[in-house]
């Protein structure tokens, strides 16, 4: 059983409110839900839509064919009607959000009491309840969504919440940021709880200020994180290089958006793997991690802090809008790596320096500096082997191997269901697990799935393993929209051996 719903309307009309509400309720009823937000770079008007899929089985992606279209304006009908299944239904009209909520509950056959509980959490309960009742009475039941038995403790959260929770529970002291989609929600999530959580959130004048303030605070021993997207990350690059030289621990949250330039700012692609790996001039140790769902964002945030603190390096956690803003159904099993603060105030410098922190231009000292950084890179690599650097999903014995990283995880998981396919999801980009080479060598057929045009992961694989992935085995999507289940499944099937 699987239901696909689109909520469409103009920006500001509230299609997101309805979608999130229903997603939450579906998870409460024991279902797995996946919720995707599609919005433009504008505040009022235009066309926004949200896609909710829920099922009695785990689900991490949406389908193109929909069962129900909730259209808050005519434009939404025009755009999405073609994807409606034969027996699909359109809920339309011009009314209050809570009216539609009532109508939706009736159409889906969900108990009105559940809606009442949700509306109690909002302002103007009486008024909203009245609208909801009217909406409920205006439609007839078309689906029968009943509570199902769910043994797991499920929650409905997005990547932003996972990452923010991970940072807080890793002992975050200060978060600096300058607003930039799609990193901004982390700024919002952290800012809200800063007083009760006794950490500090500061928005500064630009990303250059943000990363340099982070350096200043990190020097005093504070655990510091900054957040940005591609353009802001580019601005930070000189100071990330400084962190590499001066040995200063900072965690950098990089929420990718489709570039180059301003690109397609409110949509999602995975084009910044290369820049994360190579950011900053010079050669220096760094950690680059790529979570694929909110629980992994939580876990990897803590590992980023751990490695940053232990080795005094910049750690980069890569996300994108698809992970940051889509809402996933996750179980409550979270893994946290604790870290202790390691830095204290002393003389730091952006120049090459001796172990005592004194500036040097001496050739022997210069070599020593390089050796020190190379050793740190090696030590990190060794210790990382004790961590879960990648995950294997699907049929572990299959000779068909799919490689992917980051937010495509969900769509790949859904797409390979029942296919003869082993899915290796890479969590640690830098350092890179040696074991991945063995998995590639064991496979007869290696596919790569990425949301970019040049397959940056193929470049990484080639560099680290010497294995060249054939172009015909690269499934690349770069329309800045997520992979939909049917299309991805077809593309994989075509390439299976």
């Amino acid at each position, binding site marked *: 059983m699987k239901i696909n719903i689109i909520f469409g309307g103009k920006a500001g009309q509230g299609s997101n409110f309805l979608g999130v509400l229903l997603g939450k309720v579906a998870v409460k009823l024991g279902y797995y839900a996946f919720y995707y937000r599609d919005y433009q770079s504008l505040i009022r008007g235009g066309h926004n839509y949200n896609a909710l899929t829920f099922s009695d089985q785990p689900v991490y992606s949406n389908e193109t064919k929909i069962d129900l279209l909730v259209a808050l304006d005519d434009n939404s009908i025009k755009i999405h009607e073609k994807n409606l299944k034969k027996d699909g239904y359109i809920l339309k009209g011009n009314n209050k959000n809570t009216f539609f909520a009532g109508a939706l509950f009736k159409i889906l056959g969900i108990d009105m009491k559940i809606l009442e509980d949700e509306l109690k959490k909002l302002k103007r309960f009486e008024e909203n309840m009245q609208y909801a009742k009217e909406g409920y009475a205006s439609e007839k039941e078309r689906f029968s969504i009943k509570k199902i038995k769910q043994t797991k403790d499920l929650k409905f959260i997005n990547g932003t919440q996972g990452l923010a929770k991970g940072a807080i529970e890793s002992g975050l002291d200060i978060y600096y940021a300058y607003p930039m989609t799609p990193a901004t929600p982390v700024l919002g999530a952290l800012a809200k709880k800063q007083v009760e959580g006794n950490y500090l959130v500061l928005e500064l004048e630009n990303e250059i*200020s943000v990363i340099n303030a982070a*350096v200043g605070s990190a020097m005093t021993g504070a655990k510091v994180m900054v957040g940005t997207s591609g353009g802001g990350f580019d601005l930070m690059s*000189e100071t990330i290089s400084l962190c590499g030289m001066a040995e200063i621990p900072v965690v950098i949250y990089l929420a990718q958006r489709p570039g180059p330039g301003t690109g397609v700012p409110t949509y999602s692609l995975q084009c910044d793997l290369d820049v994360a790996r190579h950011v900053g001039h010079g050669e220096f140790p760094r950690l680059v991690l790529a979570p694929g769902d909110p629980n992994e964002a939580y876990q990897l945030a803590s590992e980023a802090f751990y490695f940053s603190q232990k080795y005094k390096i910049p750690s980069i956690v890569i996300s994108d809008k698809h992970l940051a803003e889509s809402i996933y159904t996750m179980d409550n099993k979270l893994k946290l790596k604790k870290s202790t603060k390691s830095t*204290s105030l*002393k003389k730091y410098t952006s120049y090459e320096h001796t172990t005592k922190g004194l500036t040097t231009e001496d050739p022997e000292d210069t070599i020593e500096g390089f050796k020190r950084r190379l050793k740190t890179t090696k030590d990190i690599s060794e210790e990382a082997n004790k961590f879960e650097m990648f995950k294997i999903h699907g049929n572990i014995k299959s000779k068909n191997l799919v490689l992917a990283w980051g937010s495509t995880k969900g769509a790949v998981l859904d797409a390979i269901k029942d296919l003869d396919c082993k899915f290796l999801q890479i969590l640690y980009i830098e350092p890179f697990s040696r074991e991945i080479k063995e998995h590639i060598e064991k496979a007869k057929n290696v596919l790569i799935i990425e949301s970019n045009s040049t397959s940056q992961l193929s470049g990484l694989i080639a560099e680290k393993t010497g294995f060249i992935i054939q172009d015909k085995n690269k499934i690349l999507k770069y329309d800045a929209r997520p992979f939909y289940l049917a299309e991805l499944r077809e593309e994989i099937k075509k390439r299976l051996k």
Partner: protein
Amino acid sequence: MNKDELNTKVVSTWCPGCPNFMILEGVKRAIAAESTKDKKSEFAVVSGIGCHAKIFDYINLPGLNSLHGRVLPTCLGLKVGNPNLKVVGFSGDGDCYSEGISHLIHAARYNADFKYIVHNNQVFALTVGQPTATTEIGYKDGTTFPFGVKTMPLNPIKLMLASGATFVARVFSDINQVESVLKVAFNHKGFAFIEILQPCITFHPDIGYKEKTYLLENEKHDKSSLDAAMKKADEFDYNTAKKIPLGIFYQERKETLEEKYPQLVNLNKKSSSWKDINR
């Protein structure tokens, strides 16, 4: 703290006779006096890139010799990381007015409690003499600007006054002037902007500025008046000099950034920093 405790063993690479030596001496005297007055005080220093930045190696205090133009956000980060620190930032005119100018305006606006010294020699000295944002019209360096500077210099004092800085001062690179203004700045709660006019003996020697300077404290200058400060700031446009006022142009007590966040107020009360919090 004895002033000599601030010495390091690093051999100075400033040109012999560089006024930076006088700035260094004045700074050391003021810091030594401040540390004696407040025995619990912990200092941190930050410098950027340029001749000024070498001062970091010659003062035995922790901190960062940072990147070009980024002294201010680093100082802010230090102060936010440990609100009990006494932070002094050093910049040059290239570092501050060219590369890092945006931070200067915002530093004035944030009003975090740290002291900021700009060594203004009106030239990029460490890159052998190119003009900066405060170099006068007509300046020729012989290599990159053979036809002379054509644009008007910036007036940093006016910029700071307009940006809401709570402490705005200018002195000459003279030991006593540097020492005494920094002592007053340490007593000021908030962001203190101190510009030091410093001839570069190699690329931009004194073009008759020193003899045109006079001290504001000898006049009836009202440093609590923004209007009076602006008028005084207008007397010298960094291009041609008739009279160059020196001293504190403006001083005002405003709530500091650290006083606005309860998290930082708590750290201050407990004389602790984030490092002491184990979660």
